[in-house]
């Protein structure tokens, strides 16, 4: 996880040593995962990196941007920085469960800072390094939906947390699924 968060090199038998962001993009374009995601990524898609939990200074390391950038190099879309964090929120991994930011907190702490030319065919893919319940994605998706109501919005995270040990099948285990917002709790359910 730290390798992804800091974009450190990872050595694999298949690709040799690559920075984490490059490795993720290469994996997605290699067999069998390219077929698995064939209808998900495409050169015409817009890849929107999800902001970190705090505003970042120029030149600072931004893992989701680096992953999106590496995906662009693999022709999986074009990177556009569209959303920025304007107010810091607690880091989910370090906050107690009852103080983790909700989708609403994320939505209210982000701002859409760029315009996009959207056609009805445009797909926007939010890109993040790690997903837990999907609160950040949900808040970011709301921001995009408000600014670009006609766009189709999806999300991609390089790594997901697995709370049930029995469900852990290995480090490389891509899945597709859904994040559902629960209005009554202001939280999300991620499946799988």
């Amino acid at each position, binding site marked *: *996880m*730290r*390798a992804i*968060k*800091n*974009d*450190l*090199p*990872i*050595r*694999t*038998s*298949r690709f040799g*040593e690559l*920075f984490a962001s490059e490795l993720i993009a290469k994996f997605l374009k290699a067999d069998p995962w390219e077929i698995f995601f064939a209808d998900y990524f495409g050169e015409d898609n817009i890849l929107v990196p999800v902001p*970190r*939990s*705090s*505003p*970042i*200074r120029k*030149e*600072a*390391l*931004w*893992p989701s941007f680096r992953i999106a950038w590496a995906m662009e190099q693999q022709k999986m879309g074009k990177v556009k920085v569209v959303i920025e964090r304007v107010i*810091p929120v607690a*880091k989910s*991994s*370090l906050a107690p469960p009852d103080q983790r930011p909700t989708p609403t907190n994320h939505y209210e702490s982000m701002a859409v800072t760029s315009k996009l030319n959207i056609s009805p065919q445009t797909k926007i893919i939010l890109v993040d390094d790690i997903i837990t319940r999907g609160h950040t994605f949900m808040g970011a998706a709301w921001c995009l939906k408000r600014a670009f109501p006609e766009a189709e919005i999806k999300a991609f995270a390089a790594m997901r947390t697995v709370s049930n040990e029995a469900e*852990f099948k*290995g*480090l*490389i285990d891509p899945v597709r699924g859904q994040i559902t917002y629960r209005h009554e709790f202001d939280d999300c359910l991620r499946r799988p």
Partner: protein
Amino acid sequence: MWSMLTKEMMEKEMRRVEKSSFKNSWAIKEMTPSELLGRPLNDVERKYAPKVVYVSGRIRIPLPGPRVAVIGTRNPSHEGIYAAAAITRKLVERGVIVVSGLARGIDTIAHKTAINAGGKTIAVLGTPLNKFYPAENRPLQELIMKEHMAISQYPIGHKTKPKDFVFRNRTMALISDASIIVEAGKTSGVVSQGWETLRLGRPLFLWKLLLNKNLDWPEKMIKYGAIILNDLDELNYVIDDLFPSIEGVISIGEVEAP
């Protein structure tokens, strides 16, 4: 750090440093930061990384981890001293290598506590390895160079300038997986390390003492992602989160540890 000294005081101190003799028997190795860390640096890391570093000590290379910098003011309060020692002991207890800058005050406490607690420590110097600054830390530096590790980006013979300590702070941020600022003033040298830690995307922790000092930089750093540490339990939690054991994962997947 340097802004607190008058020019005259600084020159006097540096003359004292110049006079110090150096045992030539130290085995000093020259290497790139990439060799020191055992991996290529990404472009964000390369920006302020020195071309080479000079290293003396027993800790193996590439450096084992995790490594956390414990840094702060040269003039700590009673609470600052107590906190620096307690934080360091907790890190050692959890198997973390304690990194600091061998300055007076918090840095010295961090190194000494790590050694006394049976842990490992790395000193990142703003002077060449054959200089001792402050001079009173010479025995500590010699012990670290012999039993632990001292690192400098400056070759022997380099004439020390105040900005060298700022560059040293960036290097310390580079070799540390995270940094903890225990206590510091308005113009403390650790501020540059704090910003560099954030630029590198590494966790930066501010001990709670920093909030009671009417300083503006901790608030700014919190806005950009620094996290307040309120007690040692939180530190435990943070260590668990930052450095989870990954041995089980490596054997299952095809990815090897970096």
